[in-house]
């Protein structure tokens, strides 16, 4: 999977990069800086982000056991971690191959349906309060992917997405 930076390396094989290419390179650099900054926020605020989710979650009654609650929540923590890495590397497909493809059958079950939906909503709200609008647009597509795979009711659609 060649990154944008490797493309530049290859383009520059036998010549100096052209001004337009340099500009493009600068843009890539600054985009990477933004992504790294967001990654750091997600990493450092992980506890805060999920504490809000947990606090809200505990106001509600679910038919699941405590152990199930913790398990499902742990998987969602993983969803955000893998999303963050996929966002940082700008390789959204990593989220699918490294987590969602495997997780979908484990998590997308009837008994977890309402729990999944609620955690997903709360996570979204919690992120909105921690991140700025620009950062939200970076991470949102990945969370959307996770939602489609783990929360969406239409199973045939999500299989098509993952396949």
């Amino acid at each position, binding site marked *: *999977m060649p990154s944008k930076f490797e493309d530049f390396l290859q383009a520059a094989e036998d010549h100096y990069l052209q001004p337009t290419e340099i500009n493009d390179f600068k843009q890539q650099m600054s985009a990477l800086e933004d992504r790294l900054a967001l990654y750091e926020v997600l990493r450092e605020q*992980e*506890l805060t982000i*999920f*504490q809000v989710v*947990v606090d809200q*979650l*505990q106001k509600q009654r679910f038919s699941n056991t*405590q152990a199930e*609650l*913790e398990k499902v*929540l*742990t*998987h969602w*923590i*993983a969803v955000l*971690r*893998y999303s963050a890495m996929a966002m940082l590397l700008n390789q959204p497909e*990593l989220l699918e*191959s*490294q*987590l969602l*493809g*495997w*997780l979908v*059958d*484990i998590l997308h*079950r009837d008994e977890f349906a309402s729990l999944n939906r609620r955690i997903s909503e709360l996570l979204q709200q919690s992120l909105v309060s921690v991140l700025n609008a620009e950062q939200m647009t970076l991470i949102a597509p990945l969370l959307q992917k996770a939602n489609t795979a783990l929360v969406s009711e239409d199973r045939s659609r999500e299989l098509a997405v993952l396949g």
Partner: protein
Amino acid sequence: MIALEELINRESIPGNFFAPEVYVQGDMELGLIENRAGARLIALPDTLLRSLYTSLENEVGPAADLVLRQCGRWWGKNFYRRFTTEVSEYYGKSLAEMEMVEFIQSLKECWKPTVGA
């Protein structure tokens, strides 16, 4: 009460052990490939596999089935032993402690074609 801090501070939260980007590793120059747990892997071209079947058929005729069964049994036993060790090490629990669906997922991911990935 959910002990969130405890969940977050766990060493790692496992994902897909068999994700192709991380599962197959190796040294292209030396021509060696191994999996993420360090076990050696071998890549065999389809043509070779097919010709093995054909040659076996030519060499031993009707006994080919028996040979294949014996080989398969031997290979499968070793495969399962390695699969069990690696999966339970990665997920931090023995196969017996795993939920059926988790086990099935691992088995499925392990056999997912990764050609071109």
